[in-house]
């Protein structure tokens, strides 16, 4: 197990180098002069521009810029954004918000997926199951920004149950609506996994044995069936958590959540290399970390899977 984890951690190094290089190069290749764009209409003298460029190492050739940036990362210096704020500070400001939002969304997703999926699986082929499958397909088809707008317009503006946008500081009650939107847009896949897994488990010998030795349905369903059906759901939800940590750009934008996706999207548009690459680096680390945890979860949850 330990060797497996070490091996996986070693694999992260080339991937991380590759992703940072790729992103750094692409942002470098963006047309336009980000420094000139910083000053807007009032362009300062060429000398000032030169000094600012030197400050961000933009006067150096590409590969030197990249290596200087990498060197910075190794000593914990993520560089400075064009607005003068250290990138590490931006990271510290935005990541807690995104983690909070992702955790809430995942909790909603998990509850919906397990409860609906279990009952759907137990009533396979009945009316509830079929209706539920159709609803799930619909939710899989509606793009997230459409769900977000409908929720914002219906629940936020018309009914007034939730605040339509998130105020500064991102308190939990404000994050509830975006979390519901994310959870609802993600639940269908997990729900179907739960349902399929429940149906598989119901046909297992140990379930028949449990009934045969006289256990009641109230004990067999939660203990024997549900517990053994949750592996695909939990691993899929964990993967979703990794996706939410990096990919909630659209939802965060619509609800004005001061999280990672929103800030990163603005930084890309501005061509802020240090900010973009630092965010992507942290995201990729989280993403690979979540993937590793997911793979280890398989082994923890299912004794048949062992990593040598």
């Amino acid at each position, binding site marked *: 197990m330990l060797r497996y984890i070490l091996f996986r951690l070693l694999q992260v190094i080339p991937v991380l180098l590759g992703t940072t290089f790729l992103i750094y190069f692409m942002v470098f290749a963006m047309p336009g002069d980000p420094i000139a764009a910083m000053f807007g209409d009032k362009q300062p003298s060429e000398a000032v521009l030169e000094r600012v460029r030197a400050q961000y190492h933009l006067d150096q050739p590409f590969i030197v810029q990249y290596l200087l940036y990498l060197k910075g990362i190794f000593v914990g210096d993520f560089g400075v954004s064009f607005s003068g704020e250290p990138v590490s500070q931006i990271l510290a400001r935005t990541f807690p918000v995104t983690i909070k939002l992702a955790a809430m969304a995942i909790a909603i997703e998990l509850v919906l997926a397990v409860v609906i999926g279990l009952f759907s699986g137990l009533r396979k082929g009945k009316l509830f199951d079929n209706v539920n499958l159709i609803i799930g397909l619909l939710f899989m088809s509606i793009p997230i920004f459409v769900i977000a707008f409908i929720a914002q317009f219906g629940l936020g503006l018309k009914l007034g149950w939730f605040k339509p946008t998130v105020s500064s500081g991102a308190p939990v009650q404000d994050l509830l609506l975006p979390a519901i939107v994310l959870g609802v847009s993600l639940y269908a896949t997990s729900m179907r996994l739960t349902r399929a897994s429940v*149906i598989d488990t119901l046909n297992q010998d140990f379930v028949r044995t449990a009934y045969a030795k006289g256990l009641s349905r109230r004990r067999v369903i939660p203990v024997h069936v549900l517990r053994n059906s949750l592996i695909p759901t939990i691993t899929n939800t964990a993967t979703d958590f990794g996706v939410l940590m990096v990919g909630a750009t659209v939802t965060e934008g619509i609800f004005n959540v001061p999280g990672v996706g929103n800030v990163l999207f603005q930084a890309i548009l501005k061509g802020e290399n240090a900010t973009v690459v630092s965010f992507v680096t942290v995201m990729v680390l989280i993403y690979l970390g979540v993937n590793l945890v997911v793979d280890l979860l398989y082994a923890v949850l299912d004794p048949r899977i062992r990593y040598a």
Partner: protein
Amino acid sequence: MPDSQNQSQPGRSVRPPIEHFVAPVDETPVVPVDAVRIKEKKSNLWLDAWRDMRRRPMFWISVVIILVVALVALFPGMFTQVDPRASSLANSNGAPTAGHPLGFTKQGYDVYARIIYGASTSVSVGLIVITITFVVGTVMGALAGFFGGALDTVLSRIGDIFFSIPYILAAVVVMSVMQEYRNPLVIAFAIGGFSWPITARIVRSEILRVKNADFVMAAESLGLSRFATLVRHVLPNALAPAIVVTTLSLSSAIVAEATLSFLGVGLPPGQFISWGNDISAAQLSLRTDPMPLIYPSLALTVTVLGFILLGEVVRDALDPKARARR
């Protein structure tokens, strides 16, 4: 003479007679034992899948949706006479009138005409994306899985690099780099360039499963080269999961294009009509007039639903395990 035994022992009729049914020789067709019976239904993975699919209502629903979308995308002029680029600000956010069944956008465009003309953008981008992911993913996955060793390590790590950058974000970066050249081909490469590793992984694991089969060894022992073995024997038997994931990813590619256009880094709104652009434009007047946002969203959702249904049916048909769960 079947009754001779009974007649010879009268009085001992305890057991009922054992009846032998043997057809006379002239009624029994004589077939050579090594002949192939070609009258039986032919059966292979694809035929079975087709037989399974055509029995399902979901398949026909998806076919109808996709046919309608394809017709609209190919011949938009057949469905509307209104010019989708004709804007009259007098009609800004106007209610539906005769000839304009869905009303007008804030810019005074006809909503229905915009939806009709937006279909081709979505469908063409989606098709180019899945072509890219299928070709690149299959080639990378097949080479990595079949030849193994150092090549596998290198190709798999390259896949990891592209896979671990979320593909919407990567596409945002690519579209920012290519901001002078935003067209359906570029946006398709921006999306497909970062989503092929999923296909590659699936093909690779399937190749690993297939490559040790007996028929592969047979092909090699007949003197076929390694590459010919891969192309002629291994790959055709490992493609089913790749086809499933490609069909399913068509819908996500359409959503990705709409998302990028929605974020403002997709197709330039002046040149291309895209549902994502229209949704993004209608967002500004959501509070006063939500309908111009709802209609293109509905078109997008129905199109995506059609392709998701197709992907589901194809997956169920090609994966016997999924069949059992229905």
